[in-house]
């Protein structure tokens, strides 16, 4: 009885240490569990895979460094997929602190495939006014972004000669950590301009996206770090890239972390019910 009462009153810092150690250990000594891709990731992969070479896909970087571990791997994986298929990539963002992350991706990933800025990839940057930005892009991208993130006129970028408005883009991938995010693209880009939207979401908002998947409004979804890992595996299995896969490397820790949480919930419930029953 006293043991169960002690369990209920245990110092929270002991729980922190246990969680921290058990999450860190598989990073140092991997368990080798492997990752299988789910149907949602496969749908998105197939949709991007079927885009003809030379076409442009749009990626909206709507997240900030707080969601970077979950969403940056999917941004990198989708960009690698696009470049391997000779697709052009147009990036923009609705989150101001996501601009730096998109800049990082634009700097690091195109050189792996010999792609050049302005010809194969353009980053438009961030702009204030979420709905006004999306609706404006639907009519004319250059009206919204006269210059790109780096201050270069869009007229001087060869890639932008073939992409004038959202209807010129066969599919977009909205990587969102919340609001504004994929729902704004569905609200304004899809309802008005019929744009195909795929979503990369933090796991927190993934459960809320299933109605859009079922109704066909979303073409595939990547949920959290696991979604990023699934896409990395798909890209590697298709032979498009052989680079380090950070999301896949984290999956062992993810598995152990979930087991730890489940055990903590079970122990907490056992201790609670035993002390309540015996106390009564």
């Amino acid at each position, binding site marked *: 009885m006293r043991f169960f009462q002690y369990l209920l009153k245990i110092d929270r810092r002991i729980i922190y240490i246990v969680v921290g150690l058990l999450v860190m250990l598989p990073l140092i000594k991997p368990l080798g569990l492997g990752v299988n891709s789910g149907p949602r990731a496969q749908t998105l992969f197939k949709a991007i895979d079927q885009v003809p070479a030379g076409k442009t896909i749009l990626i909206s970087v709507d997240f900030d460094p707080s969601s970077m*571990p979950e969403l940056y791997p999917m941004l990198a994986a989708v960009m690698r997929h696009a470049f391997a298929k000779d697709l052009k990539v147009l990036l923009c963002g609705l989150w101001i602190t996501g601009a730096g992350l998109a800049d990082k991706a634009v700097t690091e990933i195109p050189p792996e495939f010999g792609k050049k800025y302005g010809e194969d990839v353009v980053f438009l940057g961030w702009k204030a006014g979420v709905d006004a930005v999306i609706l404006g892009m639907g009519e004319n991208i250059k009206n919204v972004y006269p210059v790109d993130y780096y201050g270069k006129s869009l007229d001087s970028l060869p890639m932008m000669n073939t992409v004038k408005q959202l209807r010129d883009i066969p599919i977009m991938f909205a990587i969102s950590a919340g609001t504004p995010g994929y729902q704004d693209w569905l*609200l304004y880009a899809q309802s008005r301009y019929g744009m195909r939207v795929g979503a990369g979401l933090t796991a927190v908002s993934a459960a809320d996206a299933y*109605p859009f998947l079922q109704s066909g409004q979303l073409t595939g979804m990547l949920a959290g*770090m696991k979604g990023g890992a699934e896409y990395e595996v798909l890209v590697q299995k298709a032979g498009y890239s052989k680079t380090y896969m950070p999301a896949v490397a984290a999956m062992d820790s993810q598995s152990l972390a979930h087991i730890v*949480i489940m055990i903590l919930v079970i122990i907490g419930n056992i201790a609670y019910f035993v002390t309540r029953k015996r106390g009564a």
Partner: protein
Amino acid sequence: MHVSTNILTWVAAILTIGIFSFLWKDNPFYKFCEHLFVGVSVGYTIALTWYNSVYPDLFNPLFLSPLSEVSLGNKLLLIIPLILGLCYFCRFIPKVSWLIRFPMAFVLGWGMGAAIPAMFQTYIVKQMQGTFLTPGIFARWDVLLWALISFVGVVCSVLYFFFSKEHKGALKVASETGIVFLMVGFGASFGYTVMARMSLLIGRFQFVLRDWLGVIK
């Protein structure tokens, strides 16, 4: 183990430890990091707003571009949003703080007007289409079954939130069925939330162990 020799990586690592120190207890190092974060965020926002929004959309076309690039008519039109935008500054002058209502009225009215048909289309029409029309329901028995269960779930969950009538009789049965679906939905959300939070922690550990300490490759 191959500890980084890059001073900026060490700065990032020390700031990470500073934030994590809050787990032990609140301390001046954590407070310093917290206030630094707020300050840097504000400064970053100011810089990006200027370079990505104000300069290319307003300052450059209105004041710097020659008339051959931007006509006089277009320049004069830009004065209207400039005046509206400057009204935001009146918030800090008590005597004329009511002027902030003008830009707010413009942006709110525009936003609400643009949102209503979009919301109706995206959240009501398309979602109702998804509820009533599921592709392939007559092709396979399990698709039909899950579509029926989903339909019942949507109707019962909506009825749960109908508080204008007392939940008695058939409405009580429906709302209790709705609660079952809602609980499963919240459980699924909790499961995914655990995944999300743990991912963020794993990401930070990957930085500490790989980029800073070089323990993992």
